[in-house]
């Protein structure tokens, strides 16, 4: 009896596990399959294998059918928004990594008045709804008289990305024995040498992890970017959103697959760095 119950529970667990993975990955698998489907009218019906959608995405093949012309974007435009997205993601995550790491070091190593409140405030940008943050930033930029541009997107992204980096690096620092820094000083190393040779190498996995996370979050942020991007600056997610508004076309599947692959590479790099350090 009890054995039966055990095995039925076991089966349920298997089913649950399988369902979990299906819900998570089936859409991704589907989109990948669709991106190679030559059926331009109904992507759910397989008519044959093609690279056309990838080709048209990069302008390597003129959009053949007349109905495509309406939405196929100028390939220069795709490269333009991609460039914008990369500039924003790279600068914002680099700046946030510096700010977040410095903040984590300061809160871990020094005591100052209002430290607790300050630490609590650091979580705010993460729990605040994106839409609120977006509107707040927009009002701020307009109020201060900043012209909305790539720069405002970068500044806006830094406000919440710094928090993510801070949390990851702070966790790493919490696990670090700070007598190591004392030992380094004891052996004659000044504060700069100690930071470069002892502290930084030890928190590096956290710093890299924080950078990669910030990079990915920045790269696919829609809501906040939507508010603080100027009329003539567009990032990849905003561009895709605009495209989808005019109907889901096969090219979007191709673009999505490319993004998945890119994220996969970045995430793998992050995992690789973690494992190498520990």
């Amino acid at each position, binding site marked *: 009896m009890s054995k039966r119950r055990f095995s039925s529970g076991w089966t349920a667990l298997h089913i649950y596990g399988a369902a979990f993975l299906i819900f998570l990955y089936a859409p991704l698998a589907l989109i990948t399959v669709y991106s190679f489907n030559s059926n331009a009218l109904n992507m759910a019906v397989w008519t044959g294998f093609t690279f056309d959608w990838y080709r048209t995405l990069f302008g390597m093949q003129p959009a053949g059918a007349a109905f495509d012309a309406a939405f196929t974007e100028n390939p220069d435009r795709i490269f333009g928004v991609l460039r914008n997205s990369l500039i924003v993601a790279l600068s914002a995550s680099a700046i946030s990594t510096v700010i977040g790491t410095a903040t984590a070091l300061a809160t871990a190593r020094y005591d100052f008045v209002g430290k607790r409140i300050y630490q609590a405030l650091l979580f705010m940008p993460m729990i605040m709804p994106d839409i609120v943050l977006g509107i707040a930033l927009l009002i701020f930029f307009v109020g201060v008289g900043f012209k909305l541009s790539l720069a405002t997107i970068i500044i806006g992204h830094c406000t919440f990305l710094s928090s993510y980096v801070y949390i990851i690096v702070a966790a790493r620092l919490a696990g670090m024995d700070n007598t*190591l820094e*004392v030992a*380094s*000083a*004891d*052996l*004659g190393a000044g504060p700069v040498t100690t930071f470069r040779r002892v502290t930084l190498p*030890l928190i590096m996995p956290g710093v890299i992890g924080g950078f990669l996370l910030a990079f990915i979050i920045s790269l696919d942020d829609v809501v906040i970017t939507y508010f603080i991007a100027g009329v003539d600056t567009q990032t990849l997610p905003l561009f895709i959103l605009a495209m989808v508004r005019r109907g889901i076309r096969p090219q979007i599947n191709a673009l999505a697959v490319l993004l998945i692959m890119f994220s996969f590479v970045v995430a793998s790099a992050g995992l690789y760095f973690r494992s190498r350090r520990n």
Partner: protein
Amino acid sequence: MRQVSEQEVLRVDGARKSFRTPESGVVTPLDGITLSIRNNEFLTLLGPSGCGKTTLLKTIAGFEELDEGEIFLEGRAMSAVPAHRRPFNTVFQNYALFPHMTVAGNVGYGLQVAGVKRAEETARVTDVLRLVGLSGLERRKPAQLSGGQQQRVALARALINRPRVLLLDESLSALDRKLRQSMQIELKNLQNTVGITFIFVTHDQEEALTMSDRIAVMDKGRILQLGTPAEIYDTPKNRFVAGFIGTSNIFSGTLAKDGGTSRVDIEGGPAIAVTADGFASGDKVDVMLRPEHFALASGRTGAGGSLDAVIENIVFVGTDLHLHGRLANGLPVVALERHARGAGALSLAPGQTVTLHYQATAPHLMKSQAA
């Protein structure tokens, strides 16, 4: 042969330090410590856990600031000198090895920071690793070493910089007896050849007695007594010091001087014959008798006395036998007999009453702490 000169290297002057604890109390691990450390000396700090030994080392090394007082190195005040500019090195209680560096990287760190040439660094690392018996482990990471090996890396890392003063915080505690003894000898050799001054923290009183030129016995942030191992052992200043080093029998009583002889009347018990210079009749005193001061046979010359005790336990400790017994008034007493004479030869057994003889010069008088 090495000379501990009278010349002072390091001076701790009126050092005071307290911490606020999370329990909203205040602990004072340094409560007015004044200490003069001589050139090339091996000074040991001995005291119960939490008495402030590590804190004293930290303030000397510069990791903690003093609330009051000053530390002088050859007459120069150190309070404005940051830790990395002080010519001291520390072997940390928890080793504090850099986990991301190899053994060679850890040991060579001080030299790299000082800008020593690569070739010289390699040669000195090899030398010092041979000294601590870790040759061949250069490329291991600390996590790949045993506790004792890690401790020796920490020792090597501190030694390689040839500091003026080496601060050792229970730095041999993780080693087995044999390794520990050979490291003790190495440290003493280093002291002779290189001329390093050592400040050494240990819980091991045997280690303290054999290694030290002087011992400072600490309790609750104060130095109770500073002296040579023999002074500390033979003439402790008070009950605490006497109890902390070696085994001792300590009895409280009142001194009675009667013509040429003196004795201490133990409450509800026998009197102990003593020589009592510097004490007055009627003084409340503690009397210390080391176990080796007792002899079962009374074949001694000169004045003395004896105590009768019932044996409760006989403990064999290699060369000696420890006899644990009780006096008539119930006070415990420990006596020591050479094993060579043999328990069997003396036909000792628990339950038996023996007479413990001592010479009048043996009992050591201390001012009673309660007074």
